[in-house]
C-alpha cells in the first residue's frame, strides 16, 4: 500500500515551512534514512529523511513552495507493483491534531483602531518579524557603541538557538559575539564583571528557564550593586531571551518569569508583544545604565508586525501602550498575553462590549497612570497574563487599582492567568493550563454583569 509522506514538524513551534529542495525525483528508489528533501523552518534548514523504503511515486509539493503546513502530504512512496495515480486517490490520512490548535491561533488581526502613538504622521512601515526586530536592535546598538557585545550559548556560529542573532557574528566578529559554554551561572557572572569593568554586555539566555541557574548573579550582583556602592557603580547590561511557555516542551521549559523579576528593586523588566516594541525597547534597554531583564517569547518570534521606518526608533521603558480605545472595560496585559486580550476585544466588540486594551510593555517600572486613567474611565478591569496566579502581575495591579481608584470601580478586578500547575506535556492538558481567549471573555462578562 502506498505511503503518504507528510510535511514534518521540525521544531516544537513549527506550524509551516518551506520545501526548499527535493533531493529525489519521481521514479527514484529510496532507502530508509536517505535524505529526501531540505526543509526550511523559521529557525533553520533541515534535512528530511525517508523512514520507509520504496519508489518515489509522486512529488505532491513542488520545491520552493512556501508556507507548507505541517502534515500536508508532500510525496507518495510506492511499494512494488503500485502505480502513482492510484496511490494518490488513496484516502489521505487526516492530519493529526497539530500545534496550530494547541498553542497559538492565527495572529491577532491588526485593527485600524489601534492607537499608534509616538509615531509621526506619514510614517511608513515595514513588516518585520519579532525575531528580525530583535536582531536589528542589537545590530544598530552594536554599530553605535563598541562596548556593546553579545554573549550566550549558541549566539555566534549557530546564530542563536532561536536564530535571533542571525548575521551578527559575520558583522561584528567573535570578539563581540561570544559563544559561551553551557554554564549560565558562570557566564552571567562574567558578564556582570564585564559591566562593572565598563562594558555593556547583552547576555542571551537560550531560555529564561536556564536563567534560574544564574539567579544569584542577576539579583545579588547585577541588581544590587548600585545601591550597595552608594551609587558609585552598577551593571549597565541586558539579560534577554525567550520566556514563558513554548509548545509541548513540558514543565521545566515552560514558565513565565515576569513576576519573579518584577519583585526586585534595581532591575528594569521589559516584556514586549509586537515587533516594533521589541525593537524599540531592546534599543532602549541596551542604552539603559541599569540591568534590564528583557523577556521575549518563542511563540512570537516568527510573528510579523509593522515596524516604523524611523531611523533610530526607540520605545521608552516604563511606558504602556493603548492598543485600542474602549469604554466598557479595561484589559491590561503584556507579552504574549496581548494576543488573548486583543482577540477577546475583537469578539467582545461583536457583542457590543467596547474594551480598552493596554499593553504594559514594561513590568518594572509599571506605567500605573495609563492603567488608572483607563480604569477611571471604564470602571472595570481584567488583567491577562500567562504566568502563575499567585503573586502575579495582575495581583499587584489589582492592589494598586484598589488603593488608588477604589471609588471608580463598579466590579472587582479579575486576574486571568495561567493555571496553578506545572506545565503538563499532554496536548489537551497543556491547552487547559494556558490562558484562553474564552476565559478573558468570560471575565469581561462577569465584570460587566452581562
Amino acid at each position, binding site marked *: 500500500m502506498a505511503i503518504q509522506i507528510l510535511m514534518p514538524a521540525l521544531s516544537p513551534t513549527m506550524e509551516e515551512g518551506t520545501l526548499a529542495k527535493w533531493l529525489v525525483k519521481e521514479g527514484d528508489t529510496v532507502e530508509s534514512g536517505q535524505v529526501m528533501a531540505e526543509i526550511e523552518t523559521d529557525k533553520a534548514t533541515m534535512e528530511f529523511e525517508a523512514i520507509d523504503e520504496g519508489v518515489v511515486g509522486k512529488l505532491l509539493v513542488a520545491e520552493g513552495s512556501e508556507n507548507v503546513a505541517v502534515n500536508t502530504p508532500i510525496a507518495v512512496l510506492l511499494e512494488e507493483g503500485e502505480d502513482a495515480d492510484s496511490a494518490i486517490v488513496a484516502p489521505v490520512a487526516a492530519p493529526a491534531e497539530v500545534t496550530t490548535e494547541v498553542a497559538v491561533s492565527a495572529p491577532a488581526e491588526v485593527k485600524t483602531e489601534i492607537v499608534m502613538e509616538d509615531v509621526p504622521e506619514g510614517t511608513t512601515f515595514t513588516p518585520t518579524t519579532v525575531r528580525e526586530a530583535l536582531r536589528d536592535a542589537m545590530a544598530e546598538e552594536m554599530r553605535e557603541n563598541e*562596548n556593546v*557585545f553579545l554573549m550566550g550559548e549558541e549566539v555566534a556560529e549557530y546564530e542563536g538557538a532561536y536564530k535571533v542573532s542571525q548575521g551578527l557574528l559575520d558583522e561584528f566578529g567573535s*570578539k563581540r559575539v*561570544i559563544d*559561551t*559554554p553551557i*554554564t549560565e*551561572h*558562570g*557566564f*552571567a*557572572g*562574567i*558578564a*556582570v*564583571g*564585564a*559591566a*562593572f*569593568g*565598563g*562594558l555593556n554586555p547583552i547576555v542571551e539566555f537560550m531560555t529564561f528557564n536556564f536563567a534560574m541557574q544564574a539567579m*544569584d*548573579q542577576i539579583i*545579588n*550582583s547585577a541588581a544590587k*550593586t*548600585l*545601591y*550597595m*556602592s*552608594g*551609587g*558609585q*557603580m*552598577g551593571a*549597565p547590561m541586558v539579560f534577554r531571551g525567550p520566556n514563558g511557555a513554548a509548545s509541548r516542551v513540558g514543565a521545566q521549559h515552560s514558565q513565565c518569569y515576569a513576576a519573579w523579576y518584577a519583585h526586585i*528593586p*534595581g532591575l*528594569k523588566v521589559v516584556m514586549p508583544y509586537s515587533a516594533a516594541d521589541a525593537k524599540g525597547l531592546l534599543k532602549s534597554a541596551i542604552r*539603559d*545604565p*541599569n540591568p534590564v531583564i528583557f523577556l521575549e517569547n518563542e511563540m512570537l518570534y516568527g510573528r510579523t508586525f509593522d515596524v516604523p521606518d524611523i531611523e533610530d526608533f526607540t520605545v521608552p521603558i516604563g511606558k504602556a501602550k493603548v492598543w485600542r480605545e474602549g469604554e466598557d472595560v479595561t484589559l491590561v496585559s503584556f507579552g504574549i498575553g496581548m494576543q488573548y486580550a486583543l482577540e477577546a476585544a475583537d469578539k467582545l466588540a461583536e457583542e457590543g462590549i467596547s474594551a480598552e486594551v493596554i499593553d504594559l510593555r514594561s513590568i518594572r517600572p509599571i506605567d500605573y497612570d495609563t492603567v488608572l486613567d483607563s480604569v477611571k474611565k471604564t470602571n472595570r478591569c481584567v488583567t491577562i497574563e500567562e504566568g502563575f496566579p499567585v503573586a502575579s502581575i495582575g495581583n499587584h495591579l489589582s492592589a494598586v487599582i484598589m488603593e488608588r481608584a477604589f471609588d471608580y470601580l463598579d466590579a472587582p478586578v479579575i486576574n486571568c492567568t495561567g493555571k496553578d500547575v506545572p506545565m503538563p506535556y499532554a496536548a489537551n492538558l497543556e491547552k487547559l493550563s494556558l490562558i484562553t481567549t474564552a476565559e478573558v471573555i468570560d471575565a469581561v462578562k462577569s465584570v460587566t454583569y452581562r
Partner: protein
Amino acid sequence: MAAKKKKAGSNVSGDELLKYYREMLLIRRFEEKAGQLYGMGQIGGFCHLYIGQEAVVVGLEAAAKEGDSRLTSYRDHAHMLACGMDPNGVMAELTGRRDGLSKGKGGSMHMFSKEKRFYGGHGIVAAQVPIGAGLALANQYKGEDTVSFTYFGDGAANQGQVYESFNMAALWKLPVIFVVENNQYAMGTSLQRAASTPDFYTRGEAFGIAGAAVDGMDVLAVKTAGEMAVAHCRAGKGPYVLEVKTYRYRGHSMSDPAKYRTREEVQKVKDNQDPIDMVKEMLTQGKHASAEDLKAIDKEIKKIVQASADFAVASPEPDVSELYTDILV
C-alpha cells in the same frame, strides 16, 4: 610546584620592608579596632576580620600595578586598605554612616571604588569569582595590559561557579589571577572535612591552568609568587591559580565561638608564623629599623586607626532620603 620559600630578608631593601610592615600593621590595628567597635555596638550585623592573613593582600598588592583590578569576598576590609582606600571611609561604612564609602548603604561586606578599581565586597560565597573573570574580560576587550586579582577562600573553592569561571577564563585566556586564600577553615569546617583534594593550586589543572602554592604568612614569598602570576597573565598566557596558605586568628565572623579548633592551634601559629613579627624580625636583624623607629610607626598607625574610629562614630547616619536613592541610575 609550590613556589620556593624565599630566604627571609635577602635582596630586600629596608624601605620596602618598612612599607610592608606599615601596611600590615595598619590592617591589623584597623581590624582590632573594628572588633572593639563591634563589641561596643557601633558596628552591626556581620563583621569578618582579616587578622593573621595580612601578608596575603599586602604581598599581592606589591605585585600589582596601576590599573589592575581586584575584588574579594565579605572579608574585605584589608583589601581596601591595601589598595589605598581611605580608612576613614571604610570604618564609617562599618558603622553605617553617611561618610562611609557606600554612604552607609553597603556595610562591612559591600564597598567599592572605581578609582582604585576595587570591585567589592561580595556577600555570597564565590559569587565574586566569575565577576573577577568578567573584569579580566573587560580588560582584555579594551586592550588593556591589566590583570584581575580575584580573591576567594578555601570554602568558596568548592563552589561550582569557580570551575565554570576556570573553564571560560582558560578558554578565552583571560588575564585573571585566582587567588585562593586558604585559611584552612570554611567558617567552622576545616578543609580536611570539606575538600576532597586539599591542594587548591592544582584545581585549575583540569582546565590547563597553571598554579602554585605559597606560604601566605611570608609577605616576601607572596610578593614573589604574585609577580610570577602577574607576569604569566600579562604575557597573554591566560589565567593563573595562586593558592596562598594562611591562617585567620579570629573567628569566621564576630559571633563565631571557634569550637572547631583549639586555642593551642591558634597560639602556635601566632607564636611561630605571625606575618608581622616575621617582617619585624627582618627589620631589626637587618638593622633597617631600631626599636624606637618601630615604636614610632606603631604610634603613627594607632593614630590613623583611632582617627578612623572617631570619624566613623562622629559621622551622622545617612539622611532618610537616601533610602530611595541609588536604586536605578
